[in-house]
């Protein structure tokens, strides 16, 4: 008995780990029924895997049987691997017992597709319903939408889940068609739109009637695989940007492709996942969501790819030196946000502190900005006299030579062997 459940968990957690979403925040589900769990406010990472990714949810597949044969997926039909499937009760019991021990914030449930979309989706719905109704579970539930499932099932799922998501997989239709001829982006857009419409509808009803139940309170997300096909960063970010706009997504995740297949259309097994590229995409994504950058400012036809050696904010600043230097003591908040080395928190502190004193170098250093990087782009009360204007390449070299970039020691992103 012990061994069977351990084996299933091994197989079905292993197959789910390539889904990078791990957020457990953004919901508003409170423990109001003296039940168990609380999904209000910020999520908690309970541990981190040895590759440094956060573990906040029990991330599993219901089954890794699948009728599809997508080249990038471990669970693809033609892959010769062990298969397993959880029962509804097993998933509920695992979730509850992990949650009660404070291992997790909730459940991330995805699935391979057995028989057909509705058959699979119906089982996913039974699990979340049981958790919410029988177990009075108020923890976080992220449910994967099964493409092609009926509207009724999607709507029911949304009554119990905190977040729903459906992966775009490849950044463009062209890339997706190459690796998964049976799939298309429009197949993803339809359920995203349906859930989005329902969220809007529930919200407008909520304004009128207090007792409207929650519907996907933490919104929707998606995932784009990076590096399996040849799309540029521009294509990736423009797709993300369009999905943020058209479907009000909460997050787009970028997943550096890890070769798991001998398929000739894909990078060979053993080649390194593009970790730096993935990191740069997340940085660019943050610039769009929290720093007020437009996607066109970050990438265009002249610069279709993010630089590897500098982060996208620094890259933008170096291309736009005419916007600098920024006077810390007078510039408006949004421009301070654009200074490389100044984050959202320190930008806010700067604006607050300068009401009391003109800010000097020592203040700025203590406020926690990356001064060595920022100093090239700012003026402050005791700025040194600048005799000549430096050009972008010179500043970049100065920053790179002073910085301790974690990427410099291993430019090929080789693993260090301690």
């Amino acid at each position, binding site marked *: 008995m*012990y061994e069977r*459940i*351990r084996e299933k*968990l*091994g197989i079905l*957690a*292993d197959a*789910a*780990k*390539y889904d990078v979403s791990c957020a457990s925040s953004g919901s508003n589900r*409170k*423990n109001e029924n*003296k*039940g*168990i*769990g*609380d999904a*209000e406010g910020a999520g*908690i*990472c*309970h*541990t*981190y*895997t*040895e*590759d*440094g*990714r*956060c*573990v906040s949810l*029990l*991330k599993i597949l219901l089954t890794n049987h699948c009728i599809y044969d997508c080249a990038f997926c471990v669970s693809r039909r033609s892959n010769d691997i062990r298969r397993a499937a959880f029962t509804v009760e097993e998933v509920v019991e*695992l979730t509850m*017992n*992990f949650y*009660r*021990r*404070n*291992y997790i914030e909730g459940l991330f449930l995805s699935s391979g597709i057995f028989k057909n979309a509705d058959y699979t989706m119906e089982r996913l719905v039974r699990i979340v319903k049981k958790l919410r109704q029988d177990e*009075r579970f108020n923890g976080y539930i992220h449910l994967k939408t099964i493409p092609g499932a009926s509207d009724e099932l999607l709507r029911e799922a949304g009554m119990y889940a905190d977040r729903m998501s459906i992966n775009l997989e490849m950044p463009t239709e062209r890339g997706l068609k190459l690796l998964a001829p049976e799939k298309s982006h429009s197949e993803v857009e339809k359920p995203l739109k349906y859930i989005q419409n329902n969220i809007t509808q529930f919200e407008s009803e909520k304004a009128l009637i207090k007792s409207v139940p929650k519907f996907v309170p933490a919104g929707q997300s998606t995932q784009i695989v990076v590096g399996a096909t040849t799309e540029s960063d521009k294509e990736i970010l423009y797709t993300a940007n369009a999905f943020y706009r058209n479907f009000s997504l909460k997050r787009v995740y970028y997943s*550096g492709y*890890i070769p798991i297949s001998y398929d000739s259309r894909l990078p060979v097994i053993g080649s*390194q*996942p593009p*970790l730096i590229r993935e990191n740069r995409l997340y940085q660019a994504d943050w610039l769009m969501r929290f720093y007020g950058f437009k996607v066109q400012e970050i990438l265009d036809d002249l610069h279709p790819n993010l630089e590897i050696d500098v982060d996208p904010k620094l890259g933008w600043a170096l291309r736009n030196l005419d916007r600098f230097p920024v006077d810390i003591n007078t510039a408006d908040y949004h421009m301070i946000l654009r200074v490389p080395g100044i984050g959202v928190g320190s930008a806010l*502190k700067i604006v*607050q*502190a300068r*009401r*009391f*004193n003109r*800010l000097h170098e020592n*203040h700025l250093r*203590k*406020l926690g900005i990356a001064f060595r990087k920022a100093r090239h782009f700012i003026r402050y009360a005791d700025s040194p006299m600048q005799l000549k204007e430096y050009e972008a390449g010179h500043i970049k070299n100065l920053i790179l030579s002073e910085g301790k970039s*974690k990427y410099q020691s291993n430019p090929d992103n080789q*693993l260090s062997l*301690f």
Partner: protein
Amino acid sequence: MELYIFDGSLEGLLTAVFECYTRKSKIIKLVGQAHYVPDVFDAGFHVVSDREKGERVWKGLCAKLGKEWQLRFYQAYLSERPEAFQHLLNFARYVIDRPAGASENYAHPDVLAISQTARQVHREKHRMEAFVRFQKTGDGIYYAHIEPDFDVLPLVSEHFENRYADQRWIIYDLKRKYGLYYDLEKTEEIELGAAPQLSVVNALPAGLLDPKEELYTLLWQDYFKTTNISARKNTRLHVRHVPRRYWKYLSEKQR
């Protein structure tokens, strides 16, 4: 400069602030009883903790500080750091002497120090919310112990009450020798007569545990292992997020 010695309590610290004003002291060095080494030349002034004086100072502070800063003040106190006590005293005097809003002056050394210390304490609180690993005992109580860097138990009780409203639990601070016990109604501070014996894999000896506990520890360890992607191995990142000093309390790190 005058030397003030206080008993280390929050009440004592607030009383010290009160005494600064009644004694018209200019510059104070505040030291806790525990760190005080008597000096032949400077006897120092012994602050006698006084509830009423303390409350007056706290009220005065609250009138000048928003909710967030009131919490920061308390968090910084829970850091148990001698230098934080000094900053708190200076900060309190600075805020009381000025119009409301002075606490936003992050260029002021005491303001900055308190906000930074509070942040460290807040992070430790957050880590404890993350790293507590309950074990179900034979009598159905979920038990965990911790050794936080700062005295954060008072800060975490609400979090666990909200979350685990339908199960009884104990979180015990081995370093400070007290814990929280939630009995389905309320949370109380408790002291355990004999601290439970530690074993490596399980925090509690197997005899005290629910028969299923071993299975869930195993499943959790399995899960931790299988969810890792070895092609992305990044030990530096892992250790930055899960500092080694916490490993001994994390069941997933025991194999």
